[in-house]
């Protein structure tokens, strides 16, 4: 096995290490702080309560109205705490970004102008701007370090966060990003 593309393993290893470093920093700055933990538990609790309230709908009109009001309050509470949650993440965002830029600088100095892997498919032109960046020749299946590093960090970091339990709770993600106008009239 000529392992012409042995460098790709080096990139994999460096991405793996940098993912752990980034999560370590985030843990140090955010995840172990009590504010984050309390925010996280309120979000989990409210989204669970909302979920259970949504599943059993009362019949009598009066309770329906009061229930809708209660759900409103819960929704607003959920939105606020998920917004605070994302603000609390900004603190470590800066440090993590610095780490990623340093690692990227190191990798590009090592592998500039070199194909580090072979793609088993011909990517779309749009993808080629990334997968063929800085690689000599015009063979579209040559893979640049940038593309491989992007794939590594995307897959490794998201799974590492999931594995460590740092990924944002589902309830918050939905409420925080796309504030759906709540139909409060309640037909």
């Amino acid at each position, binding site marked *: *096995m*000529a*392992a*012409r*593309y*042995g460098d*790709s*393993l080096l990139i*994999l290893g460096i991405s793996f290490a940098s993912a752990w470093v980034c999560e370590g920093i985030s843990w140090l700055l955010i995840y172990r702080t009590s504010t984050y933990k309390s925010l996280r538990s309120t979000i*989990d609790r409210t989204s*669970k309560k909302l*979920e259970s309230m949504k*599943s059993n709908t009362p019949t009598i009109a009066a309770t329906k109205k009061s229930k809708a009001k209660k759900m409103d309050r819960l929704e607003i509470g959920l939105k606020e705490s998920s917004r605070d949650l994302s603000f609390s993440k900004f603190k470590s965002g800066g440090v993590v970004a610095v780490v990623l830029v340093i690692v990227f600088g190191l990798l590009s100095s090592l592998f500039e102008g070199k194909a580090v*892997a*072979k*793609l*088993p*498919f*011909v990517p779309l032109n749009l993808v080629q701007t990334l997968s063929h960046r800085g690689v000599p020749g015009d063979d579209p299946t040559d*893979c640049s370090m940038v593309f*491989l590093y992007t*794939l*590594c960090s*995307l*897959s490794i970091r*998201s*799974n590492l966060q*999931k594995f460590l339990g740092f990924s944002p*709770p*589902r*309830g918050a993600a939905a409420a925080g990003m796309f504030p759906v106008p709540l139909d409060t009239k309640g037909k």
Partner: protein
Amino acid sequence: MRERPSTGKSPKQPSLKEHDGDVSPFSISKLMNPDADWDREQLGDVLHWIRQALGLLLGIIWGAIPVTGAFWLILFFALTSGVIYGYYHVILKVDEEELGGHGGLLQEGLFASFTLFLLAWILVYSLLHF
């Protein structure tokens, strides 16, 4: 993971849909049990990790054979979505509406597994055949 007897503290007759929310979602008995009671977070985590394992597995297989061409990308999406749908709909028989609908369940961990699949496919293909 010993299955905690459900008669535990509350003497109430354990209903058919015995509430075992605190049993870890990865205990085999719960994974294969259509009567188990799932909540959105737990089911989401299980589907996420199934999808990652499938992505990694298919990536390694495609790379080892090797197969090339965008067709295999499409086959990856079809296969993994089919397996995930078959799992939660046929084996677990969960009520999708309650747990985020088909869209929500089928998207669980989709992008992460796609990047993992691509990474495995490219690496195995490059290292084994060049």
